[in-house]
């Protein structure tokens, strides 16, 4: 019994890790309609910047947790202003391709700056401890990730449901013209949303990389994982992303536990099954065409 409970905790913590990685992507896609394929790259930059900060500058994980995402946010602001804003007229598909090209560029830029060695981010002492329950042991950092995921989800929920900005964003989800009618500068909304998405990607990088590590091509691994979670949850739904993160995390963890031979197979099989039975993902909005 203990082992099941332990695996459940593992699953939840892995799920929250996935949520932390994916929520930025989900936010941007939900509001801008642009699938940001450079999301993994922003995640990677967040992780690398945090690495530099923790190992070479301040030697403080918390400071890196605050600063690194801000740097990524500034970077994504620049990307939005230079690359995306002038190209909104080209349509969504073109913008998706743009972000893909950008991912290629960032791939080499980071390998020039940070090299191709395997790196890792050292944790503050009390987070690298091991805790005991269910007669099992858990790294404290895993619990930190769970807390971070829940806090992040609550913040996003609060902003979306309870604030004026949230109202504007929800309006944007259903009707772009309506936002303009409200007298809000839609371009500004898009810029801010992309910036926040970048911030979340960077934050995901800092939080996840102590577990996932830093290595060349990590951004594509992360991107694929995030896309899977995104699509399982349903496009344009933060709540869906949250649920999907948990489902994927728990199913994958138990899959590895029960049928380890199928580890590689499982996550994609899960995605296929969900998409076939629920073509819009778990909580995705049904696309009405008329």
């Amino acid at each position: 019994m203990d082992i099941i409970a332990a695996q459940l905790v593992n699953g939840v913590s892995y799920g929250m890790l996935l949520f932390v990685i994916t929520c930025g992507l989900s936010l941007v896609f939900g509001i801008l309609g642009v699938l940001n394929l450079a999301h993994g790259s922003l995640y990677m930059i967040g992780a690398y910047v945090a690495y530099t900060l923790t190992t070479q500058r301040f030697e403080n994980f918390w400071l890196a947790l605050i600063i690194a995402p801000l740097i990524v946010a500034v970077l994504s602001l620049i990307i939005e202003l230079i690359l995306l804003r002038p190209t909104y007229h080209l349509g969504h598909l073109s913008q998706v391709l743009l972000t893909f090209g950008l991912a290629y560029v960032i791939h080499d830029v980071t390998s020039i700056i940070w090299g191709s060695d395997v790196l890792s981010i050292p944790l503050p002492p009390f987070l690298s401890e091991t805790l005991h329950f269910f007669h099992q042991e858990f790294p404290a950092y895993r619990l930190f990730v769970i807390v971070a995921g829940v806090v992040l989800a609550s913040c996003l929920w609060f902003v979306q449901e309870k604030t004026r900005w949230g109202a504007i964003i929800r309006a944007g989800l259903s009707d772009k013209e309506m936002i303009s009618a409200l007298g809000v500068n839609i371009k500004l909304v898009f810029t801010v949303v992309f910036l926040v998405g970048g911030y979340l990607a960077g934050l995901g990088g800092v939080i996840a990389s102590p577990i996932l590590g830093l290595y060349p091509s990590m951004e594509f691994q992360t991107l694929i994982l995030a896309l899977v979670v995104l699509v399982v949850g349903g496009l344009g739904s933060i709540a869906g992303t949250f649920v999907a993160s948990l489902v994927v995390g728990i199913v994958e963890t138990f899959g590895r536990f029960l049928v380890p031979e199928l580890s590689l197979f499982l996550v994609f099989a899960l995605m296929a099954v969900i998409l076939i039975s629920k073509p819009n993902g778990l909580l995705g909005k049904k696309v009405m065409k008329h």
Partner: protein
Amino acid sequence: MNKQLFMGVVAIILLIAVPFFFSLFYLNLLAEILILAIFALSLNVLVGYTGLVSLGHAAFFGIGAYASALLAKEWSPQFLLTLLASILAAAAAAAIIGLFCVKANGFYFLMLTLAFSQMIYSFVHQSTTITGGSNGLSGLPSPMLGPVDLSNPVFLYYSILFMFVIVYIVLGLIVKSPFGHVLIGIRENEMRMKAMGYNTALYKYIAFMIAGAIGGISGALYSSLNGFVSPNDVYWTMSGSVLIMVLIGGAGTMIGPVLGAAFIVVLETIVSSYTTVWTMIIGIIFILFVVFMPQGLVGFARMFQKLAIHRLLVSQKGAKSLVNNEANQ
């Protein structure tokens, strides 16, 4: 039309002549480009003509490659036999996967195709006893055409060229046919096509199978050319790079994917000898294309052509009649 035919004949003559003038390295490179061009053309049926963006097309390439390799290794290296088996295997896989995928649209279609191809990848990767696992299958016997041993790269090149020409002509006919126009119609507006009485799901399904079967051809040729197959053939990065070939070359045109394949292979082979940052170069080129040349290399060529003709018209008196004459020849 006539001019097109003429250009085609010239291109084929040039391709036939290549082994007489270029070294073995370029010959092999060209053979590889032709194979990947077939692969890109097959994906183009979906992406360019039917409007279904797939990120799992490597599944059919890989199935074709493995079917051909296994058959050659275990039973008979007869080129036509392995080719046929690959087409059948890939088409069968497409028939099954397509059943689930064609109901989905847009991004969901993309992710579903990705899911299926990754499942096939994990199967290939895991079934070490059949597929050789991560090392793939190597040391395949060289393909035979009847009693002729195709291990000579020149013979193999001609076989590949022959297949390329066939595929190009067949696909060229299909996309211009009424059937092809139905696919284009689906790309433009599926709802309208339904209102016109077209069973669009069925057409998408057929397009998926055509694309899969031709993808299988390219896979089989690849394993014949290289003498090995590896799980990379099925991995999503393969799907990604063929998608880039189609998009950079120009989706929805016949020559575009061919140019795209050549462009990427050359870039990857030649440029990477000089610099390690060739991914960045591809990325930058990709961005420039999306912003300035949404129709890909083909669009670029067309624009250039227009410019040239324009200049001709301005600079030469009576040039217009000249152009017309040629077009009518």
